[in-house]
């Protein structure tokens, strides 16, 4: 009887699980990686044409927007590959230190776009680019300067990474997820395992947004930490919160296939709460009223996580796996 019960239960879960993973890949994840690769290429083109901040900034913003649709995935090629696209949080100030060192040394790596892939992740990706383009300590450079070459190298390296990531998902890891439970799939031994992997990304992404994207700048009531906000230099901190929530909502819908009224209501509430937060860089956390608005937004993000657990996790009978952010 017991064995029969297990088999019945497995059959009950295997069907919908596979369909959901396909939908998540085809309707959310793979198009988003393609979109990011396109946006990163346009950013590289812009930087090659004119490396100066005013010319690079719009394409930087568009590429970061595109990245946010997949930024919270930490499996497969993104397990390690995502770290060199957006290195954050940077609690010990590595990005500023490494960029300053490169500039001081005029390290020839800036003229070696392929070799740039060997650089510290602190000097790669969207947040390194942000510091060069938006931080006044770095952004006063001219055409022909070393900093100009460095901006080009970072943008070209980012574009190459975006293409590599897209290809690795589309031509490799997508099949691993789709064939979960099939013969020869050593990564996911059942359809449920692939479903759980994506479900875990969903929950841990919202947790990261609440605890890190919002929690870090909030600091403590006595000591708020506005300079710890993500991408505050380019005024993207709040936007990143919303885009991460939108991405979670989209992924949740593709995974579940059904209506998600609680999740949708929670996402709407996140947007409503965000409307009260004045500063796009979350710099208002320094004032009690501003901090309160960010705290309410944080609660709304946590409520959305709970809604997804209730509407997807419970009905499907899946609990999340371990989160790459567990630990310090």
């Amino acid at each position, binding site marked *: 009887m017991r064995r029969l*019960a297990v088999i019945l239960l497995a059959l009950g879960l295997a069907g919908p699980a596979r369909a959901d993973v396909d939908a998540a890949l085809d309707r959310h994840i793979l198009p988003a990686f393609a979109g990011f690769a396109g946006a990163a290429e346009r950013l590289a083109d812009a930087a090659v044409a004119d490396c100066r901040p005013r010319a690079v900034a719009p394409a930087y913003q568009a590429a970061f927007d595109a990245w946010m649709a997949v930024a919270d995935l930490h499996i497969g090629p993104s397990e*390690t590959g995502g770290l060199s696209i957006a290195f954050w949080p940077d609690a*010990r100030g590595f990005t500023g230190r490494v960029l300053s060192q490169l500039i001081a040394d005029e390290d020839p790596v800036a003229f070696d776009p392929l070799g740039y892939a060997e650089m510290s992740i*602190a000097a790669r990706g969207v947040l390194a680019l942000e510091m060069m383009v938006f931080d006044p300590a770095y952004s006063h450079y001219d055409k022909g300067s070393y900093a100009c070459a460095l901006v080009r190298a970072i943008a070209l390296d980012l574009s190459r990474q975006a293409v590599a990531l897209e290809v690795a998902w589309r031509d490799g890891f997508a099949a691993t997820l789709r064939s979960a439970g099939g013969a020869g799939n050593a990564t996911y031994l059942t359809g449920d*395992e692939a479903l759980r992997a994506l479900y875990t990304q969903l929950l841990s992404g919202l947790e990261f947004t609440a605890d890190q994207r919002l929690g870090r700048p909030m600091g403590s009531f006595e000591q708020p930490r506005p300079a710890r906000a993500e991408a505050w230099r380019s005024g993207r901190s709040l936007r990143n919160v919303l885009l991460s929530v939108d991405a979670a909502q989209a992924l949740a819908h593709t995974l579940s296939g059904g209506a998600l009224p609680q999740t949708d209501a929670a996402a709407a509430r996140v947007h409503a709460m965000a409307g009260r937060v004045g500063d796009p860089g979350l710099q208002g956390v320094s004032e009690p009223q501003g901090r309160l608005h960010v705290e309410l937004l944080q609660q709304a993000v946590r409520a959305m996580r709970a809604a997804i657990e209730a509407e997807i996790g419970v009905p499907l009978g899946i*609990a999340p796996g371990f989160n790459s952010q567990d*630990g310090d």
Partner: protein
Amino acid sequence: MNIPLKRLTFGISLTALASGLGLSAQAQSAAEVLTTYADIAEAGYQDSLTAARRLDGAIDALIAAPSAATLQAARAAWIAARVPYQQTEVFRFGNAIVDDWEGRVNAWPLDEGLIDYVDGAYGGPTDENRLAALNVIAHPAFTLSGKPVDAAKITPKLLQDTLHEADGIEANVATGYHAIEFLLWGQDLNGHAPGAGDRPWTDYAQDDACTHGNCDRRAEYLAAASDLLISDLEWMAAQWAEGAEARTALMADEQAGLSAILTGMGSLSYGEQAGERMRLGLMLNDPEEEHDCFSDNTHNSHYYDGLGVQNVYLGDYVRIDGSLISGPSLSDLVAAENPDLDGEMQSRLSGTMMALGRIKTAAEAGSAYDGMLERGNAAGEALVMGGVNALIAQTRSIERVVAALGAEGIAIEGSDSLDNPSAVFQ
């Protein structure tokens, strides 16, 4: 480092697991498995305490008669003390009482300029940390968050209550193994090149031979930090005794207890060790982004962290006196439900120990861990990523253990769960 306990990720499915175990004819009961786990924890913290007392004796000898030999003996005692302690890190995530306390003894990374003199390249206060270069050893009085602090006498209380995590900054590490490590070795100024920190013994000379000033206060700091380490470990070892808080909390609820074991194994393996401590440092190419950056002992810290995970799964621990603690284990429980999965889990744990062993072997033969992190060092990168990938793979098996045991539980639950599978998750 002193963060709230991570969510007990598998609480839901383990509810089902434990109810299943209650009905099946297990060779080992969950309670016996939890007892072995608590016994290993108690022995591990007792061993850590014993080793910390030996370290304290060596520090006393260094302070009483500073010399190259007494400094070297203290360093050797510190390295020995890390062996049992690192094996206890697996108890951290999953046991709130350990996680709340851990930041006092093993906080990392640290802005060491808070404590003592540093090289000019270290820089001064940073945006993140206004106290990064405070140097309390050189300053008997200073202001902290606008308030004057009297540090004329450096006491355990000053370190614990005033300096540790001062200003709400985690990198202000004033206590624990890594503060002591810095005071014994000093900064490692060799970058990726061979060599650890090279603090001269004369930093503790109490006469004209004193180097870098304030040798009396430096000795006072070291003694205070060592005393604190002992009292902190005494406290934690006591919590695991029969009837004490940590053991009682673990045993109070069998499913929560099993969840604590698995949460500790998975969170240490994945987010903490594979992610934060190994891959991040590698991808940053920073020689100081290693766990034991002053002593260059990181290969051992990683190795014994991994061994701790294997210990609690197998229900075995070799004590520092060589004796073996062994009892009914999680492995026994899994084997009874699904022998193939137990085989997979054991082989993944062994694979991790092999990969971490390779790092240790290379490091002991002269290729220090910080050199492995250097930009363009492909062999070093392969060694470190071998450890990272093995730890990630074992995490997947830990998840599988939870899911498999949980699924059995659902099935055993009977028709209720088949009619309405979601019921058992509520």
